[in-house]
């Protein structure tokens, strides 16, 4: 017991420290540009966490989540452009996105593994096709502009700092809800459907229904992230729905580490920083990003966060020599040792 609490205390402290750092971030980065980058990391992290519900905990690899992300953005943007208020537009956007997620789920949950991946990809491409070609509805390649950000409770979100705090609040709410869900009986049963699908069914669990709810949860947070994306850019265009957006989100999750809370956040930070900050210094940033992915696959196939935790545990083990390995290395809940059905080993 003492070993556990000994581990827990520094972890609580680390989390408190991280939250504190995030709270004062606009003060220490000092520049609106970097605050904006931080906002981007936060809402892409929400998106990656949403995707991780399926990929990591459900063992269902979706390559069509850009469709959900953009569904929220487009619904809100088109309603705002038609003169509706922010509250109406955003509520409708989330409802439509969750409904779309239900359609995704009904169609795609007939399969698992690579079949699931392909169905989600197909739905994503259809939505892209609509955004791209149905110009009379979506304005096609020209995209949709949103003239202003909302002012909830009179708070001004037009500046970089204000918007950052909105993203932070949403992000913390997302991480919190994910942590609760993961630890809940539902989270356990979702992991069960990933690792022991047949046994779960035999035990009387409705595997399909568990996955369906997971999909709705994933869809909801994808929609929230999509709304933040829309308000951040005040603009949305078909590129957001493209296959590359889905792939990028999946890369964030896999690179950071599936079935962890910290993994998708680290993955989102990696991709956003490479795309926006590193690209200012290295012209060939696409190549560097590709090389990083290959290095991750080669040396930490389980992702950066679990991989680092493994190395750290290994190093500690070597140092202490003889003492047993700590059961749960790393600052967050590590994935079960068995890994996913899809083979996150």
């Amino acid at each position: 017991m003492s070993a556990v609490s000994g581990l827990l205390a520094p972890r609580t402290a680390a989390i408190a420290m991280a939250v504190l750092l995030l709270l004062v971030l606009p003060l220490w980065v000092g520049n609106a540009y970097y605050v904006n980058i931080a906002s981007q990391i936060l809402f892409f992290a929400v998106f990656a966490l949403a995707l991780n519900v399926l990929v990591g905990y459900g063992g269902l690899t979706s390559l069509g989540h850009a469709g959900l992300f953009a569904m929220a953005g487009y619904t809100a943007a088109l309603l705002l452009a038609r003169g509706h208020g922010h509250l109406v537009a955003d509520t409708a956007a989330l409802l439509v996105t969750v409904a779309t997620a239900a359609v995704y789920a009904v169609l795609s949950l007939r399969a698992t593994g690579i079949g699931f991946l392909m169905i989600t990809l197909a739905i994503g491409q259809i939505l892209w096709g609509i955004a791209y070609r149905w110009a009379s509805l979506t304005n096609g390649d020209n995209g949709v502009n949103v003239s202003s950000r909302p002012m909830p409770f009179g708070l001004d979100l037009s500046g970089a700092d204000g918007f950052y705090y909105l993203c932070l609040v949403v992000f913390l709410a997302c991480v919190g809800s994910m942590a609760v869900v993961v630890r809940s009986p539902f989270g356990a049963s979702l992991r069960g459907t990933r690792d022991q699908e047949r046994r779960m069914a035999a035990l009387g669990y409705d595997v399909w229904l568990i996955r369906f709810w997971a999909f709705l949860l994933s869809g909801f947070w994808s929609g929230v992230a999509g709304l933040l994306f829309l308000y951040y850019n005040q603009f949305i265009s078909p590129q957001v729905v493209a296959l590359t957006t889905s792939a990028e989100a999946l890369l964030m999750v896999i690179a950071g580490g599936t079935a962890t809370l910290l993994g998708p956040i680290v993955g989102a930070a990696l991709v956003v920083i490479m795309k926006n900050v590193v690209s200012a210094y290295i012209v060939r940033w696409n190549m560097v990003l590709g090389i990083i992915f290959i290095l991750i696959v080669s040396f930490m196939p389980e992702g950066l966060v679990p991989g680092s935790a493994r190395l750290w545990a290994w190093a500690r083990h070597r140092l202490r020599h003889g003492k047993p390995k700590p059961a749960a290395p790393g600052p967050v809940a590590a994935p079960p040792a068995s890994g996913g059905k899809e083979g996150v080993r």
Partner: protein
Amino acid sequence: MPRVTRRAVLAGTAAGTAAAVIGMPAIAQATPFKIGLLTVKTGPLAQGGIQMEQGIMTLLKQRGSTFAGRKVELVSADTGGNPAGAKTKASELIERDNVDVILGPLAAFELLALNDYIRQKGTPLMSLAAAEDVTQRQTNPFIMRPSATSAQCCHVLGDYAAKELKYRRAATISEDFAFGYEQMSGFQRVFEDGGGKVVKKLWPPLVTPDYTPYIAQIGNVDCVANGFAGSNPVKFMRAYADLGMKRIPLLAGWTAMDDALLKSLGDEAVGVVSAAWYSASLDSPVNKQFVADMAKDHNVLPGGYSAGMYIAGQVVEAALQKTGGKSDDKKAFNEALRGVSLQDTPRGPVKFDKYGNVVGDVHIRRCERKGGQLVNTIVKTYPDVSQFWTYGDQAFLANPVYSRDYPPAKNLE
């Protein structure tokens, strides 16, 4: 992060970004003038983006990186060719690098995504992208366009096709987005005013592996006007020739027959008539020098993308000369930019209307093979063409912006 501190110091020169000021007084003479280039260096639009960078670099090299006695620093940013990237990179240039002026972006949808942001920040921007309304109904006091609106050349093309070539029936084909709509609407309006009829309008998407399904729909017409951009003209013209369509003359906007594309084209391009605001074959000392330097430094024949940024740089230089090298007063500097009028640019004389858009020559060219090389030979020059053609700004602006449905095509078959 050592760069941040340097930037914080630089921030002192720019009003409005006071948040980052650490307190050191900035000395205007010592700080370099910063040009931010918003371009595309990766992805499908990289071709034009790389040319933009080559254009401004050529000017800076010719001037020894000094405008009006002040050192000039170029900060280049890669948007990846998408609106969200453009927004983030513009914020990088303005809020992190504190540039004094932005050149670019390349694509109309990038400019549309930036419009409000530039208005809010007040950093002058010299656009290559069209998106007409930015210098028309939604004038932005900080955006200028030394290249051309989408329709500026196509108005001329429509006039030439109707009056000189005496074509009566035309089909139009262009990408299904704002740049395509605005070009083809401009062509249609002037062509129909000149007595012609546009009987078919086709809109393939930006990414079209094979144009045959569209070309096959072109019926019985005297000419086909196309407004393709990027690498699409190459694909389109080959498919057009392959389908035995060369019996119907092809007309082209400036991007569809840009001089920089000539090396990628073959016999299918011979005979194509285009309207462009810049032509590498223009016979003036400044253009000859520009073409020679582009060949020497980058081994390319420059087209509008390079020339546009070169000329934008010249405009910035002229404004700095007017202010005596000072740019700390953003408003005054912006005023100076908008008042620039130049005689010696690669495209000829340049001045700006009150909406910030260029008034300059537009050339009609015919593509020919000369000594094995394809050349766009100038056959006629329309001097001092305005974005409003001959309609006058008031009358022009009373109508809605050119779109897929405006002006309505009444003669479709």
